[in-house]
């Protein structure tokens, strides 16, 4: 077994989630991503003489599977905007220095806003554990040596002490790698990361360039000329590229399953572990997409996915497309879309925050991985008049309540009361002429639709024009789905009441693979602390 212990010496951790956008950069990273810890070890190696044994140890470490973590719970710290002295630029002949004088009491200087994402862990120690890995000498010695040289994980104020820990010390993990049940996604190292970090940092070239820069300004005329010539010949007068490290691999992590697993809540044929994507506007006239556009979004997204899975095995193509190779519709459950909208709040307006991709419960791990690979290939949707939208995989952290799978699936405890967020499209045209009879017929149809996705028969089905969730548009506002023959399917909202709690995702009716007939638990008011946020 291999385990690293990390103690945060100030009681807080300062590191932000790597992201291009500001809101995410204000979110502290917790637990520390294994790749961040690896990079701290790599920095210790490169900054202290590059011992070859250390390098071999790091190359061994990066080839290991993702570690388990034992990380305490945490409370993110307040993010406030600090003003820090600007990084003054030296300027040149044509452009004067931007900020020359300093904020000693008598002289004022510009300051720039900056934020620091930090968090208070409940305890100050975190462990990373590789249960199967056994480092041999001299790897173990090199790792011990490297750990002792790690100064910080994250920002320079995030001082740590790191060491090789024993299994007794590390104890039971709180997060284990598990793509299937993943609740959070953490960056992990993979083979070749060390070499990639070295290439991106580009130290040799950077130092050579810097030395020439100094020589070009200094010394006698001859050395200056020589340095200038080399600068333009070897570097084209441009500083050598130096890139920020990028870790492409995210590993899903889940809480370990308790030894005595509680009674299984009845659920649907769909897996409660949604793959969540945020929808981010790239261009177009609308700031946000309404729930009414669900069919347009899902149709376009599905086409894009189908076009991207030609190299995949038949089974994966069937799951993505929902059709057999010969074009006949697949009877078994397949990939479905679950619109994640801002609903259930007094200010909710029903706009789409993102989309959850729902996969069937019965998938092998391999199939799930391959489907995830297909999903990763589509990163943008062009929706014509609705504009272009970027798809960002929601990875780790604590997203808003409406982007969390449990808000929609009630996993694992289940819920008895559900109401639709998109109307249930009818399987067939109701025949009843009488209004009461019509309601009964539709209710019966919806009850049957529940059974079709593996749910118990609901005790009650209320067919209604409006949803019980605040912010959801009434049923008549949604465009009707079309049958193959061109005729339109009728649809209605519904409230479902079950005798016992059931878990979602609840997708029912004829449009269940296209984002219609999506029901969401009716959370008792006040039961969800964060239900108030979008």
């Amino acid at each position, binding site marked *: 077994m291999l385990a690293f*212990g990390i*103690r945060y*010496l*100030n*009681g807080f951790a300062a590191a932000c989630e790597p992201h291009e956008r500001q809101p995410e950069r204000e979110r502290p990273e917790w637990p520390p991503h294994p790749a961040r810890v690896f990079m701290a070890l790599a920095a*210790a190696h490169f*900054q*202290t*003489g590059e011992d070859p044994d250390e390098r071999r140890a790091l190359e061994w470490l990066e080839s290991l599977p993702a570690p388990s973590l034992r990380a305490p*719970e945490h*409370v*993110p*710290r*307040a993010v*406030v*905007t*600090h*003003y*820090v*002295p600007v*990084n*003054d*630029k*030296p300027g040149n002949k044509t452009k004067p*220095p931007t*900020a*020359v*004088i*300093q*904020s*000693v009491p*008598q*002289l*004022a*200087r510009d300051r720039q*806003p900056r934020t620091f994402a930090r968090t*208070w862990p*409940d305890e100050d*120690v975190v462990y990373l554990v590789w249960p199967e890995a056994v480092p041999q000498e001299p790897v173990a010695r090199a790792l011990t040596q490297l750990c*002792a*040289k*790690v*100064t*910080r994980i994250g920002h*320079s*104020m995030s*001082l740590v*002490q790191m*060491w090789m820990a024993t299994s007794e*010390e590390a104890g039971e993990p709180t997060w284990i790698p598990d793509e299937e049940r993943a609740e959070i996604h953490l960056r992990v190292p993979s083979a070749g990361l060390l070499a990639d970090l070295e290439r991106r940092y580009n130290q040799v070239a*950077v*130092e050579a*360039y*810097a030395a020439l*820069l*100094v020589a070009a*300004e*200094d010394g006698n005329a001859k050395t200056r000329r020589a340095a200038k010539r080399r600068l333009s010949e070897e570097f084209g007068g441009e*500083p050598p590229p*130096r890139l920020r490290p990028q870790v492409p691999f995210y590993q899903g992590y889940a809480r370990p399953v308790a030894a005595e697993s509680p009674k299984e809540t009845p659920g649907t044929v769909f897996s409660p572990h949604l793959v969540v994507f945020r929808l981010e506007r790239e261009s177009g006239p609308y700031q946000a997409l309404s729930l009414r556009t669900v069919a347009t979004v899902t149709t376009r997204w599905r086409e894009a996915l189908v076009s991207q899975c030609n190299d995949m095995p038949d089974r994966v193509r069937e799951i993505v497309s929902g059709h057999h190779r010969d074009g006949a519709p697949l009877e078994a459950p397949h990939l479905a879309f679950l619109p994640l909208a801002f609903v259930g709040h007094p200010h909710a307006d029903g706009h789409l925050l993102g989309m959850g991709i729902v996969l069937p419960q019965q998938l092998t791990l391999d199939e799930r991985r391959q489907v995830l690979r297909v999903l990763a290939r589509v990163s943008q949707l062009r929706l014509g008049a609705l504009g272009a939208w970027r798809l960002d995989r929601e990875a780790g952290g604590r997203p808003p309540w409406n982007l969390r799978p449990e808000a929609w699936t009630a996993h694992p405890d289940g819920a008895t009361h559900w109401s639709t967020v998109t109307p249930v499209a009818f399987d067939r045209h109701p025949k009843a002429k009488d209004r009461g009879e019509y309601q009964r017929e539709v209710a019966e149809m919806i009850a049957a639709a529940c059974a079709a996705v593996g749910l118990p028969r609901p005790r009650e089905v209320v067919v209604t024009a409006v949803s019980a969730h605040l912010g959801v548009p009434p049923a008549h506002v949604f465009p009707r789905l079309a049958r193959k023959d061109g005729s339109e399917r009728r649809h209605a909202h519904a409230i479902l009441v079950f005798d016992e709690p059931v878990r979602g995702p609840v997708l029912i009716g004829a449009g269940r693979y296209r984002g219609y007939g999506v029901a969401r638990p009716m959370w008792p008011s006040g039961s969800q602390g964060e239900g108030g946020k979008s």
Partner: protein
Amino acid sequence: MEQLSVEVLKSAVKGAAAAFRCRRRLLPAGGPGEKVFPPTFAGAVYAIEQRRIPGRDGPVTCVLLDSVQSQANRMELALQEAVDAGRIRIPLVVVDFTEYDPTGDLEADERAGRLIDRVGKITSLQVPHRLADATLRYSELDGVPFRKSDKGKALNTVSPTNATPLFELCPTALLFGMWDSTGPKGGLGAKFERAMVSEIVGVGVEVGDLRRGVRRDPLGTSRDVTVIPSEDRTEFRVAEGRNRGVRPSKLGLASVPFPKQTDQKTRENYYDGVTIEYAEQTTTLSLICLRRLRFPLNGQPPQDEVDVAARTVLAALGLCAATLAFEAGADLRSRCLLWPDGPTVWELLARPGAEPERFSLTGETAIALLKEAVRQAKEKGLPWPDEPVVLKPSEELVKLARLSQIEAAKKTGETGETA
């Protein structure tokens, strides 16, 4: 409790211990329950946050009372005061503006290009970017721009593996961090991470009464009666007839209004201070960071015993800065004076689980510790100049400072605020 000795310090630096850490409890000087005023951040907000504390149900409301950056400045200030008082001698770079200080004769000052307000001497302990600061860059050593002088040039080759030049010129940069982003190498310049982190957090916060006005004018001056100030703002007359004046608040008259929303806390009405149960200050000096620094001498490869001697000096300097700052008192800002709840104890953090060794340290002992560590370092041949390197500001820098002061004075006049 044992006083920290130079032997203990040296063996800690040499050994595997992670850090010296001091965690102390502070109470408002007016006693528990007395209001304190936390710093406000952009948008006039306090950094109010939740934290779980062992032994308590649910998260406890906390507030940031002094940030990491501010604490670093306070420690440097404490060192500066000790230097000024002749209590310690440390390598310093000083920019001497005294010959440009105003004499009081405005016309003569203007002719001579002297400053409007006195600047005096600015040291590498006061400027924000430490040794890499622009104020130093635009100053001269014996008529040569600082970064082109022999001492300044040494900065071009410093790195954690060659920290000797920085040890000689500005050892505090090795403790509090520095990035030479403006030297000839630009962003590729030397980077040192901080080894000291300190912060003060108030625990058990109650936000103050929100219904109080910020300033009540006894005259009851109305905003609807306008005034016309004289040019120099020493007098005014009430605007009458067609003349439209400015609101009297421009002259500092009239009440400052109540917050608009008083029934709940908003981002706008956090002005009124908070009460806290106690404040907690955590100061950490990472020995791991110091161990990354190497100190080669005279172009030779670094030697272990020289490295240990130099790191011991830096550790002693860090402890000295923190202890002197503690003794200067935590008078953080107006109406935020805190007082320690007990003696100051430093823990030497070895491996987690192991009981840390504990030491007491007073300002005097810390200074003695630094002196002894410096003596031993000098014996090993490490440079520790007792006299500061004195730079003269370049002509253009003086001119810039002078014009900036004039601009600042104009702005003060316009807004009626004090700078």
